[in-house]
């Protein structure tokens, strides 16, 4: 499949994530949208990695170009997991104090 399909698909997923973060009011859903953004990036990285690999193979049959893109994806997954653990803990902490996970609640600091 041509690379641009992957690019458009990833960008679409990424934009859905951004729109979700900006419009939804439930902290958990906002959080899921952020995860969606990260996974869109993962997909894009893998696609680019394959593309660079394919381009390098034309010149050199044993080329390993493009591995680093896939390595990066693993790092993103690890960091996302760390973020989830911290983020869910924060959301639970807030739920204990306010009995709600609504982001509209977050305007107390303004005054």
């Amino acid at each position, binding site marked *: 499949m041509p690379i*641009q399909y992957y690019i458009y698909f990833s960008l679409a997923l990424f934009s859905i994530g951004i729109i979700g973060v900006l419009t939804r009011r439930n902290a958990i859903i906002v959080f899921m949208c952020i995860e969606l*953004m990260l996974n869109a990036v993962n997909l894009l*990285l893998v696609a680019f990695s394959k*593309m*660079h690999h394919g381009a390098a193979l034309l010149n050199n049959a044993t080329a390993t170009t493009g591995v680093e893109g896939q390595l*990066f994806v693993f790092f993103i997954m690890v960091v996302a997991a760390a*973020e989830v653990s911290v983020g869910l803990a*924060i959301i639970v902490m*807030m739920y204990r104090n*306010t009995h709600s996970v609504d982001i509209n609640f977050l305007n107390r600091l303004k005054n």
Partner: protein
Amino acid sequence: MNAIIFSAILGVVMMFTGIFTDKKPVITLTAIISLIVLLTVNLLNSYGLFSIQIDTKDLLHFNKLGLFFNTLMIAATLIFVLLSGSEIEKISNKTADFYALIFFVLCGTAILTSYNGMLMLFLGIEILSIPLYILTGADKHNLKSNEASLKYFLMGSFTTGIMLMGIALLYGATGTFGMASVGTGALPPSSGVQGPAFLQVAGLLLLFAAMCFKVSAAPFHFWTPDVYDGAPSVFTSFMATIVKAAGFFAFIKLFASNSSLLGPTWNILLSFVIVATLLAGNITAVFQRSIKRMLAYSSIAQVGFMLFALYSNNDLGTEGILLYTVAYSLATIGFFAILMKVKDYTFDGFNGLGTTQPVLAFVATICLLSLAGIPLTAGFFAKYYMLASVVKAGGPLWMVIVAVLFAAVSAYYYFKVIQAMYFKEGQPETSEITGGFKFGLLLVAAAIVLVGVLPSIVLNCFYF
């Protein structure tokens, strides 16, 4: 390498300290000793006496500037713990964990001062940010702290997503995560995408936006006042100094080599960001009633000045950012240490501090003068170097004039605190103040004046 390895190990050591002892002063003492060890190890590394060598496959690149910056960060943390350690103990009984997280943040700083490629940039920023989300929410039963933490977390991970998209697009265009990624055109011509240049520019712009968010430059500064206000004051002090300076270092390093790709647009974009940051920070700070919130806005205003180093991108700019880090960290850590001793954070809460606590008021005055950039304090030379670097780089003169005008505006709100302390009557409530604390504060004030008179002290440490 030393700083990265040792800060991670010492962080784990701090976690174990919490298991073996409940005595908070013991934990703080362990933290101070660990910081001194870290500082020594990093100094040994900078002078080439002892360094751990690991093959990092060129992902990390250590140079003198980065190591010196590490030293500054660790020293600032040491001063911070010495002055405000007792406040960290007051937040909850998880003191050891807070110190552990502070060490992990330092690990992130050490990565950010030595990264050589997008992978380590990303990891460094995350290692820096994730402990901070926790520290912001350290005061678990305080709703404001909860709120600040959730807000910081959501905004922070959102920007991480944007930054990663930028990195992915850059990778697509160049086929490498390396630093200097000027158009190699690795995309096969048959791919039908609009050419690598487009992807690369889009990627750089996304990265720029994300980094602006991390250092809280306008128009991505909206999280800063809320988070700084809601977080426990000790950690606000930590965030506003050490973390921000490390973010800046990464920002400058990233765009020093890449900005040429954006051409003349880069200068226009950056001057817009600088002026917007100065404007948003200074003007809003004037209208604040809470001093803590005023400091949050003033820290945005200081970012405007620090961005000049990015604009000029020359040796004066590098010296300037080092001086600025020292001046700004000393003054902010000192002033926050005093602020935490005063019960009421409004301007009225400082009324009459000059008569009831003369030492505190004196040191607060020095810190505020330094933040405002009055001559004979460290802040003056920091601002001077920044502006001089722009002039040297041939930047537009109107930007320098705007910056000086906004420095004058900033003097207004800093002097309002001084006025409250010395020229208004009142009985400010303060928590108990030990002699050692006062002595520490006086040392900070002395350091500010010393750097203000002889800025070459800091710079000589860097060059020799």
